[in-house]
């Protein structure tokens, strides 16, 4: 691909005060909690490429500028410290004369090195400085002077950028709000423009206008100034088996939208931005969509914001970015680990990524009882403590440790000793990641530990069974549920107690 976005530089934009995100030339997946700034990143790309002041104004400067920056300025309001909101897209381009327009030193990077790129700058209008300083002097500055701000778009050569000379074609698919009339119209228009070239469209419109001219309302209408006025594109609809797109489910609309965009212009380099592609999709629909995205990505740069573990792992964890207090790339993730998560059952990956503290347990029985154990030891519930419990179900905890390492997550892995001494995990632990096992090799698995610490209570709960331990070992999850239902207090095995105290502390 000749032209693509190399990095995104955000200054005072939404929640970012100063962030540089180096992105991949192909797939980019942003994951993170609600409000972490995933959508802001997508929006920044879209806004900068659009070159459209109208678009910026429709959001309003007050919605684009970082709130803390505004508050900070209000404490010491001064003309020359008024903040700017800046979005810069640093581009990769070939050294062709047509691209010189994008190349230069006029960017907000510290070093005056020449690069390709475009920028959007919201700043006080230099032509209104007098009025502005008057406004700042006279007011208590509870109101930030947004009315004196203006937005400009330019390239790194300081040439005006209007969106007419886009470095790359781009398309924003916002699935967060499919059910608006405008979104539906866009799908129809996109499809229409995919089918017909510019000249054919002009021809169609001309024919349509000719037919429209032949139709006339009765004289009465004319007296009131009523006329028929219509644009062909506004009247188009897409029907499948006679059912209009607007009457189909949101999921179907979503797939139609993403497909119509991905199929368009195949071959030419372009940027496709997709917000939450998983919205309104069933697991089957989601699989279809992911296959589609995977098939159509060649020669494209994709930016996807998602809450779906499935999308993240299937499109490649290595291409993911975790958006939290900072933006972290998974680019240098071990190839094996990325592949592991691509193949593994994945429904808990994003939970893991988004958590601050995680307890990894061996299987379903521990998973079912862990909440109760935590409550018993600390007197508080796990979600109050910000602790996520994940069941490994025989998967390798080392893979999760590698992710935890990147993201700074505190992880306790509670494991069975399986009759082995503790040497085997020594290499992968540090102060943020610990493995907890029972030191007694005879207590080789969770059920054995639990039973030996609670013989009386468990014999009571499993009174109907001949051999409670044998039953527990053979029906791990069932037994755990029965224990939970009994409301009996159990002695928590000491290695688990230790783990809980450590993760809470």
């Amino acid at each position: 691909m000749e032209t693509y976005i190399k990095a995104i530089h955000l200054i005072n934009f939404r929640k970012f005060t100063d962030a540089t995100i180096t992105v991949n030339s192909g797939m980019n997946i942003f994951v993170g909690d609600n409000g972490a700034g995933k959508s802001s990143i997508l929006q920044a790309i879209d806004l900068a490429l659009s070159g459209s002041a109208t678009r910026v104004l429709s959001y309003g400067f007050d919605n684009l500028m970082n709130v803390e920056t505004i508050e900070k300025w209000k404490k010491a309001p001064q003309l020359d410290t008024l903040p700017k909101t800046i979005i810069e897209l640093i581009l990769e381009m070939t050294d062709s004369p047509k691209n010189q327009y994008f190349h230069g030193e006029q960017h907000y990077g510290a070093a005056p090195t020449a690069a390709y790129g475009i920028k959007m700058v919201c700043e006080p209008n230099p032509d209104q400085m007098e009025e502005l300083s008057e406004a700042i002097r006279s007011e208590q500055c509870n109101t930030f002077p947004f009315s004196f701000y203006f937005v400009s778009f330019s390239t790194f050569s300081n040439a005006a950028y209007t969106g007419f000379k886009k470095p790359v074609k781009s398309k924003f698919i916002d699935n967060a709000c499919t059910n608006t009339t405008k979104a539906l119209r866009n799908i129809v228009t996109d499809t229409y423009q995919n089918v017909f070239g510019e000249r054919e469209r002009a021809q169609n419109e001309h024919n349509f206008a000719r037919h429209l001219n032949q139709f006339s309302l009765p004289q009465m209408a004319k007296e009131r100034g009523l006329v028929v006025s219509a644009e062909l594109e506004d009247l188009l609809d897409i029907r499948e088996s006679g059912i209009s797109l607007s009457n189909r489910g949101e999921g179907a609309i979503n797939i139609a939208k993403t497909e119509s965009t991905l199929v368009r212009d195949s071959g030419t380099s372009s940027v496709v931005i997709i917000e939450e592609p998983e919205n309104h999709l069933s697991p089957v629909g989601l699989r279809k969509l992911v296959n589609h995205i995977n098939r159509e990505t060649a020669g494209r740069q994709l930016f996807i914001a998602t809450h779906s573990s499935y999308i993240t792992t299937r499109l490649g964890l290595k291409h993911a970015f975790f958006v939290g207090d900072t933006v972290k790339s998974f680019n240098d993730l071990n190839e094996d680990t990325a592949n592991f998560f691509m193949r593994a059952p994945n429904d808990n990956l994003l939970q893991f990524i988004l958590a601050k503290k995680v307890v990894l347990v061996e299987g379903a029985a521990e998973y079912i009882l862990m909440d109760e154990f935590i409550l018993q030891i600390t007197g508080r519930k796990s979600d109050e403590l910000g602790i996520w419990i994940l069941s490994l179900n025989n998967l390798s905890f080392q893979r999760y440790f590698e992710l935890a390492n990147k993201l700074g997550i505190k992880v306790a892995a509670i494991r069975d000793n399986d009759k082995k001494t503790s040497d085997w995990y020594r290499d992968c632990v540090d102060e943020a990641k610990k493995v907890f096992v029972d030191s007694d090799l005879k207590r080789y698995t969770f059920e054995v530990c639990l039973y030996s610490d609670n013989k009386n209570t468990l014999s009571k709960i499993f009174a109907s069974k001949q051999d409670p331990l044998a039953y527990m070992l053979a029906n791990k999850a069932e037994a755990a549920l029965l224990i939970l239902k009994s409301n009996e207090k159990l002695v928590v095995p000491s290695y688990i107690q230790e783990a809980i105290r450590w993760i809470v502390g």
Partner: protein
Amino acid sequence: MDRRLKRAILAVAGSGKTTLLVNSVSLNKRCLLLTYTDNNADNIRKAIIQRFGCIPDNVMVSTWFSFVFCFLVKPFRVENCPPIRWMLFPKPNEVPRYARGFERFVSKEGGIYHCRSFEFVKQYIGEKKILNRISRFFDAVFIDEAQDFGGYDFDFIEMLGKADFSVTLAGDFFQHTYDTSHDGNKNQSLHSDLEKYRKQVGKYYELDEISLAESHRCPPEVCLFITEKLGISIKSACSACGCEPQLLESKTAADEVISNDSIQKLFYNNAPKYNCNAMNWGACKGLSFDCVCVVLNKTTYNLYKQDRLSELNQVTKNKFYVACSRTRGQLIFLPDSLVVST
């Protein structure tokens, strides 16, 4: 292609400069074509479109000042420099003479003075960055109307002499009618004689006085007239048109010429004031017409009558030469006393 190749082609009027330059453009090298006037830039663009069907992505055509402003001034950061928003084209006496620092180059409102724009670039951005930027985007630079690069802009021609890309200059010394950047005494005496110009350019460029020595536009009669009367040597590659350049002095003949729109009238100045197909001598550079009528002002008329045209002052003579050499056929002279202005 030898990227170090530096060539200066001294051309005569109508010898096909534009054609030669446009033919040197190809799709497999990145080319920059610079010229002084908007007219000539348009001519070059048209010729390129005629050849390739469009302006190919590897080709950029620009006027000199647009190039300096957009390609050299705007993309670079200059520490402490006030923001430069546009380019100003003041008359020589409107440029602040004694200003120092950035005020020497940039007006209060943020306009950079055109005549000092390249001096600014040279001083604050520097030769290395200038040449690097051109070299990043271009393998070959062509400069048409190179004789017009005067003042500080001639430094650009010299600077390109050291570049790692190929440079081709094409110009007609005697068509030097104005300096791109006339400022103080900078390179002032450069154009006062051909020998000196040759020597200066020859330091960096291989001089080619053969490729464009013959006019493909002017018929032999016109070339002979220019050579004999103006002392500017020009040969014709065309066949004879069959009529000598002639001076018309009767009112009827004059009216007939004025009202005939297929004859291009060329005035010393104030062409818009005449209600006919008229243009100034200075503005017609680069253009060709089937039949040209050069209107003589009083000075020129008197010298013409006394057969002393070669004594015209340098600039007027050059302009007069440009005007005479526009024709593909007949060349007519009229005294301006026979032409009524509105």
